[in-house]
């Protein structure tokens, strides 16, 4: 081992994003290249945030818990992934209106919307970078 302490992935990503924003972006006059560099910087920052908070496992556990709380729902394939089972339960609920369908939605919707909102918040900088470029369309 010639480098006792290897560089941390987070530092590489954060510093690369900073260099792109402060050094490269101000010099790029080509519109498409400018958008690409801005998006790469935002992607690096998104990656940093994802490394710090890998949410997918927590989301699956949360959804699994909600499905367990619901118990058996017709048409739901036992043993399938939680996202498959949640999909099947919600589609069944649309096709079979009634109190049980309402219960399925009442349990699953808050979980899924909560996860959607967390992911949307994490992706907001990417989205705003893309939108700012699109609204300058010429």
């Amino acid at each position, binding site marked *: 081992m010639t480098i006792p302490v290897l560089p941390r992935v987070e530092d590489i990503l954060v510093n690369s994003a900073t260099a792109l924003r402060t050094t490269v972006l101000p010099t790029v006059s*080509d*519109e*498409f290249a400018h*958008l*690409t560099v801005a*998006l*790469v910087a*935002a*992607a690096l920052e*998104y990656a940093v945030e994802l490394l710090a908070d890998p949410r997918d496992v927590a989301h699956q556990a949360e959804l699994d818990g909600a499905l367990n709380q619901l118990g058996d729902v017709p048409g739901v394939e036992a043993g399938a*992934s939680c*996202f*498959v089972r*949640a*999909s099947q*339960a*919600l*589609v069944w*609920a*649309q*096709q079979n209106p009634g109190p049980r369908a309402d219960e399925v*939605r009442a349990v*699953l*919707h808050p979980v*899924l*919307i909560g996860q*959607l*909102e967390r*992911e*949307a918040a*994490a*992706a*907001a900088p*990417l*989205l705003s*970078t*893309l939108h700012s*470029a*699109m*609204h*300058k*369309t*010429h």
Partner: protein
Amino acid sequence: MSAPQADALGPYLSEVCGTPVTVSTPTRVAMGQSRAMYIVDADYDGGTHRTILRVEQGGFLGSDSATEVPVMQALYRAGYPVAEVLAYEPTGTVIGEPFFVMAFVAGVATELPSTLDDYVRLLARLHRYDPAELGLDFFAQPELPTGPAHALIDRFEATYRSGLVGDPSPLLEEGIAWLRIHAPATGRVCVVHGDPGPGNYMHLDGRITAVVDWEFTHLGDEYFDWAYLIWMRGKRLMDPDAWIARIHDVAGIELDWERLRYWQAVTYLMGACIDQTATRFYRERLMAAPNLLAISTGVHLSALRRLYDTVLA
């Protein structure tokens, strides 16, 4: 576009035009997500002709040029403001992807309120065309009364499934089910632009010079276009009530609010489904463009949230 790909353009255009053509180095332009767009200056017949190269990207966003080109050609023949298609290469053998070349149309695609009335009139005019008279009978004709809604849901669902890399999206699956169950009746099948509104037409000195982006054009219900204009491309310019009043005043079209709400949800379904293709393209490294990450996360989730709020909440 790589240099060898660019080098292949001149010989290809020479063959198509039947005269020697030399081309400039293609310059990528930032507008558009589904296609790579380049400005190319072509020298032939003693003059320089500015053209636009519109290149497919492996079916990204679930569209191709196979219908876009004949639609543009038909509308150009009918005198509708679209760019003239000069050449269409559908095989992908020349530069690695299918592409077409169209005449450059002067103008910008920025939002300009003073052009909105003319645009509304143009969209209404599009809907009045008889598809058969335009020569668009190669499109599948959806069966009335609910075929237009079902056909579009089927199309977007297929695009969504093609973009999945693993588990499905429960809310999107539920949204598809809701829209199938509640499909409304369509009274008349017409030519639907599929992505209409500010940003998808060019204007110069206050005059509309070309309507662009015909890759989602299909035969269906005009309400899709009106909903798309109101809630997608036009939402920053006016609120829905103001749009509905404006469309009535300008084009004499009385829009039914309840029916519009359904088609509003279909526009969100479209967004969520076509954006799903970015997930697979990014995950499988089919395209390295960083906009794919934004589309597969933030853009996709934004459309999904609005679909949920519109019909599932």
